[in-house]
């Protein structure tokens, strides 16, 4: 059963835009009620998850729908976070505009990096994005007067309206950000652009014969994906309260990739699982190691070990990630966006350009 079948079964409207907005509104209402009942620390964590989800959605779109791999999404998060912090420190702009600008600047960086990406594939593309992940922190270190060096730049959470606590307000901003991005990306994937992304992923020659401009499609996917990562980074910067290079190491890019695969490459809801893993897995492993009284040497590396084991187990038990596994539990076929292993997605005859 595909998403349309699911929508029909649940009596949801058939118009994708209406359906996505309706789902997002329900999710927003449920989360609003839930978040209000959480402790401040859990509110903070839910917000962090939402910020990671935004970045993961971008990565899922790039890899799942368009078949490109990026090891540089941590760096795009850094670009968004630094943009946000610079705007906060030097201007009096409304924070929503600042968030939009962060996404825009990261998308522009993605556009520049995406141009050569049209000529590169697989490991070569991964190598180039890896270089970007390594370069960005060095660039920020090079100009400490602008980027604040080691100490970084501070960010402040916009003043909470009414009697809301800072953590609750922050979580609401981040959740709304995540929902807006998910609705936009879901619509994009349902539009002719989404179909073009998948067509290029499945067969570039066939896609170009069908009238799709392959290079332009790949660059577009890369830029949109980078924009999402930038927005995710900017939202995360509100959580951490500071932006410095130490926050965006190479391992972040790799963890994002692993979390995306675990969540379910190509799905959007699966990225929520990915975000939960990124935030909770290190913590669970720490509490496990202290429960079993492991020495500090062993416990220190337990998080990494558990992440690796979970990744291996998940790939064997649920190769389509957590979301794929849940779909199986629900009795559904794998998502059409999962790496092209399922039935080919419909290819539009012409994209009109």
């Amino acid at each position, binding site marked *: 059963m595909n998403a349309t079948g699911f929508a029909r079964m649940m009596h949801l409207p058939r118009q994708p835009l209406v359906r996505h907005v309706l789902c997002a509104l329900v999710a927003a209402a449920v989360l609003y009620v839930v978040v209000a009942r*959480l*402790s*401040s*620390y*859990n509110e*903070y*964590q839910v917000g*962090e998850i939402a910020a990671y989800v935004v970045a993961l959605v971008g990565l899922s779109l790039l890899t799942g729908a368009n078949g490109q791999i990026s090891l540089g999404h941590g760096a795009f998060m850094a670009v968004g976070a630094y943009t946000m912090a610079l705007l906060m420190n030097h201007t009096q702009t409304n924070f929503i505009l600042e968030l939009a600008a962060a996404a825009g600047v990261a998308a522009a960086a993605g556009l520049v990096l995406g141009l050569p990406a049209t000529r590169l594939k697989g490991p070569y593309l991964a190598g180039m994005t890896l270089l970007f992940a390594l370069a960005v*922190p*060095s660039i920020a*270190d090079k100009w*400490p007067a602008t980027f604040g*060096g*080691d*100490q*970084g730049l*501070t960010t*402040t959470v916009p003043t909470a309206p009414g009697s809301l606590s*800072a*953590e609750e307000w922050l979580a609401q901003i981040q959740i709304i950000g995540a929902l807006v991005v998910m609705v936009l990306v879901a619509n994009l994937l349902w539009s002719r652009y989404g179909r073009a992304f998948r067509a290029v992923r499945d067969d570039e020659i066939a896609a170009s014969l069908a009238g799709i401009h392959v290079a332009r499609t790949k660059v577009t996917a890369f830029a949109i994906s980078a924009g999402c990562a930038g927005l995710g980074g900017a939202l*995360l910067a509100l*959580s*951490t*309260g*500071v932006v*410095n*290079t*130490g*926050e*965006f*190491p190479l391992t*972040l890019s790799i963890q994002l990739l692993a979390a995306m695969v675990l969540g379910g490459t190509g799905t959007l809801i699966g990225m929520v699982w990915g975000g939960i893993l990124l*935030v909770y897995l*290190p*913590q*669970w492993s*720490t509490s496990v190691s202290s429960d079993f009284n492991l020495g*500090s040497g062993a416990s*220190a*590396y337990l998080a990494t070990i558990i992440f690796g084991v979970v990744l291996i187990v998940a790939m064997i038990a649920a190769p389509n990630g957590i979301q794929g596994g*849940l779909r*199986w*539990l*629900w*009795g559904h076929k794998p998502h059409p966006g999962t790496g092209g292993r399922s039935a080919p997605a419909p290819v539009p005859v012409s994209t009109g350009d």
Partner: protein
Amino acid sequence: MPRRARRRIDGTRVARALIAGSIGLMLGVTLLPATAGAESTPGVTSSTITIGATVPLTGPAAPGYDEIAPAMNAVFDYVNAHGGVDGRKIDYTYLDDGYNPANTATLTRKLVLQDNIFADVGSLGTPTQSAVQGFLNAQKVPQLFIESGCNCWSNPKYPYSLGWQPPYTVDGKILGAYIKANFAGKKIGYLYQDDEFGQDVVKGLDMEIPSSAVVSRQTYDAATLAGPLSNQMAALKAAGAQVVVLATIPAATALAMLPAAVIGYFPQYVVDSVGADPPTVGPLLSSFAQKGGGTPAQVAAAGGLLNGVITTAYFAPESDTTNPWVQAEKNILQQYAPSLYAKSGLDGNTQYGVALAYTFVQALQKAGKNLTRQGLLNAIANDGKSFVTPGFVPLSYSSSVHYGFEGEEVLKLENSAPPAVTPTGSWIGGVAVSPVEVTSPGSGPIHKYTGPTSLPPKSLTSGS
């Protein structure tokens, strides 16, 4: 109807339902909110004081620095074994942030919002602690004795943040003044880490050393430090630098001295105390020499490169075994952190941990029975100068100064000095070559310190 019948005997459906049910149950149990009791002062009960910290236990910054928090815990265990402070036992939780500020931000919120700590004590790092300075101050949680010499901790904007070790600029000024007085007319070269640490040391050096004497300024990037700093050392040699100042972390000190020795370059080294602790740098020199394919003779000689190095100290080094503080530190570690002592012994890091924790215990004692966060800060501001510490000079704390120590002596590492003996071997000791000097990180002058140096209480040295 036939469809229904087929479904009833479908085993996978049952399996699916079971798996889905158990996952739901697991999530439900995990996400149950933790309940926190309401108290007047967070983290303080009639019998306990809960404090926390974030430190690197894994990752590139961990070696050496992962000893500090366990050493602090030894002091708290000692205090708890003697009845605690005002009948309250100190409960210390330190979490691994891997030196990543994003982790620090999350873990510090866990400590404050979930574990309800009274204060954040002994957290490590400039980028990491900068990330939570705003949050901790907004929450009015004391951010005490940050393990970093950044000039940024003493800032009226952040009344709840306090540094402890000397600011890096103080290191630079005192070393610079020594160079100006003792190596006049010689060509000077710098090699420094290109971040706050290195730049703050250089700021201090430049206040004392005339810029005409500096013939070369080399840098390296801590994040990409992977191999020998050959290019930088070759450049210093080519510029004819006779005195080379290193503002380097321990690994970088070794990675600078070894390639210089290979090209026959043996300048007078002046090393910031961050990267000059012999029990830390000595083993690195030998192991890097071995990994680099050195002959056994070269590996054996590598440790000798530290002979003649000029550095600074703000408390008695571990090699000074007759110093009562060194004896007290050894006693506490031996009794209350035996496994740490067996592994690391007394070195710059474990000494640091013991001294820092002992400072905090005195702050608690001064704050008194009715313990509040503001009361603790007041106690440090009013009485910090009279705390008993291993430092050569008293702490500088006041309501406006949030630096700890601002005085150091210049130390020369010499083969003839009594060595520091640790479980990893015997390491070169140091002798003082200057009086203890005091200065602020600003442009103020350097004064000779003539006041007394505090001694540890009898109970500590006797180890009872």
